[in-house]
């Protein structure tokens, strides 16, 4: 009764073929990640030390540490976040909670999608025109941070909207039916339940921002600075640009230095990502509906 017909055999063979095919593709996907990490650790791991992280570069950047670049990246990311998060979250709340479906909101949506598609080098040039020259911030942390903020805004808006959308509409209507205004509803019911998703998006955002090079190299990141930035109006070094410089622009750099810089940059991003994942898992554990 359950004997295999030729058709069964054929289906089973095809089934196995596809399963293996998809498995191969998945493994193929992991290879670059593993190779990159392994290479960085093998070639750059030897230089990593507390001293490397917390001292200045010396001998025309062919020796010493990366502290100014590390600190500069933190500064720029902080400015970018301070600018993009309030703006992006507020815009997302407006679009998701207040705006109706009309031509105005549709134009805004289109603008956001297009903003997300603008190449980073174009953002860089916009940053030079708008922040460095027009607003007169000069090449500074502020100008670089704001340029990055504009670049990351669409992602903040989209991820925040996704989190807001995940809150069931029935909760809002139940609140409105009690006579609550939109803002009361947002504050008491929607935001407390969306905040985990919003924060996760923001943390992921940080990791993206940290690695960007093009938008900051004309707006605030310096080739080499012998001192640390004192305010947001100073220029600064940054990890991503520093990597580019020591890898291609400076002669006589020992091989493990650029690999070490890359390792620190990637470790920073991975650290952020794992915090984000841990955070999401923690909050999903206390999911409220």
């Amino acid at each position, binding site marked *: 009764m359950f004997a295999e017909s030729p058709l069964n055999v054929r289906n089973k063979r095809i089934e196995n073929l596809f399963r293996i095919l998809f498995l191969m593709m998945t493994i193929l996907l992991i290879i670059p990640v593993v190779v990159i990490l392994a290479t960085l650790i093998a070639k750059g791991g030897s230089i990593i030390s507390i001293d490397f992280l917390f001292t200045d570069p010396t001998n025309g950047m062919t020796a010493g540490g990366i502290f100014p670049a590390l600190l500069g990246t933190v500064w720029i990311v902080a400015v970018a976040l301070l600018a993009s998060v309030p703006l992006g979250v507020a815009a997302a709340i407006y679009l998701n909670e207040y705006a109706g479906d009309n031509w105005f909101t549709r134009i805004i949506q289109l603008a956001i999608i297009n903003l997300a598609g603008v190449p980073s080098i174009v953002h860089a040039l916009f940053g030079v025109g708008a922040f460095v020259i027009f607003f007169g911030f000069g090449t500074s942390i502020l100008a670089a941070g704001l340029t990055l903020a504009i670049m990351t805004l669409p992602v903040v808006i989209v991820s925040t909207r996704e989190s807001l959308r995940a809150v069931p509409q029935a909760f809002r209507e139940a609140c409105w*039916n*009690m006579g609550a205004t939109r803002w009361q509803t947002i504050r008491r019911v929607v935001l*407390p339940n969306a905040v985990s998703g919003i924060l996760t998006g923001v943390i992921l955002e940080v990791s993206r921002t940290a690695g960007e090079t093009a938008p900051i190299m004309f707006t605030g990141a310096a080739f080499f600075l012998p001192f640390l930035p004192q305010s947001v109006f100073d220029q600064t070094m940054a990890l991503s640009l520093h990597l580019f410089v020591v890898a291609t622009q400076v002669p006589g750099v020992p091989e493990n230095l650029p690999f070490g810089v890359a390792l620190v940059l990637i470790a920073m991003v991975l650290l952020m990502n794992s915090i984000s994942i841990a955070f999401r898992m923690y909050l999903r554990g206390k999911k409220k*509906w």
Partner: protein
Amino acid sequence: MVDMSINLAAADMMMASLAQGPVKLGVTDLNISYGGIPALRDVNLTVKEHEIFSIIGPANAGKTSFLKALNRMDTFNTNMKVAGEILFNGLNVRNLKNIYALRSRIGVVFPLPVGLPLTIYENVALSPRLRGINKTSDLDVIVERCLTRAALWDEVKDRLDSLGSLLSGGQQQRLTIARALSQEPDLLMLDEFSIAVDPVTTMRIENVLKELKQDMTIILVTNLVQQARRLADRTAFFLEGECVEVGKTEDLFTGAVKDQRTRDYVEGKFG
């Protein structure tokens, strides 16, 4: 001559209503449509204070749309168009500027319970908080009173800090009722509240409603003809977007109906 007769009819209606208490809700020529497709046509009826007024009828009769119009829920859904006059406490809700005040006077309970993702305590304390009551001692009193009235207090008094959305379906529905009561409403609207509730809980809620009648007007939309019979003072029968008949509940069930369709529905011949 024509004017005269209309006035006489109006006077008649007024006399009739005075005889049974003041009018809470007067609905005149109410029409509701969604995207041009009518859901409710030319409904005229009145609901009196301190009565349980039930609306029965099969699915797609426009019962829920009727409730939504009273609460101005058409503002949630741009697709919904409402025309006609709805007088609530003598004021036309269509022209009200302050719909937040209107909604805070009307408690609504929907078929599926909505336990807000807050603690049990906060579910009930939310509405008082929205009204500006923030003192813990005041809130404690309100929460206990509302949960008790909704026949839920004994089951949850030891875990007021756990999430409302984790309660069972029947408990969540009583929590929803407690939340509606925390608004101290003039009018309580229940839309097929017993759909997700077991029979025992349904009976408990029904007993609660009979007591609540002293303090508020209740509109009860129900699929269960017998539920209307048990609870309602007067009943309206809706069918396919039309209010077929309004009358004393006992009349509808003792055969004193004006319309054959009402008789058929009540006797279970369709729907």
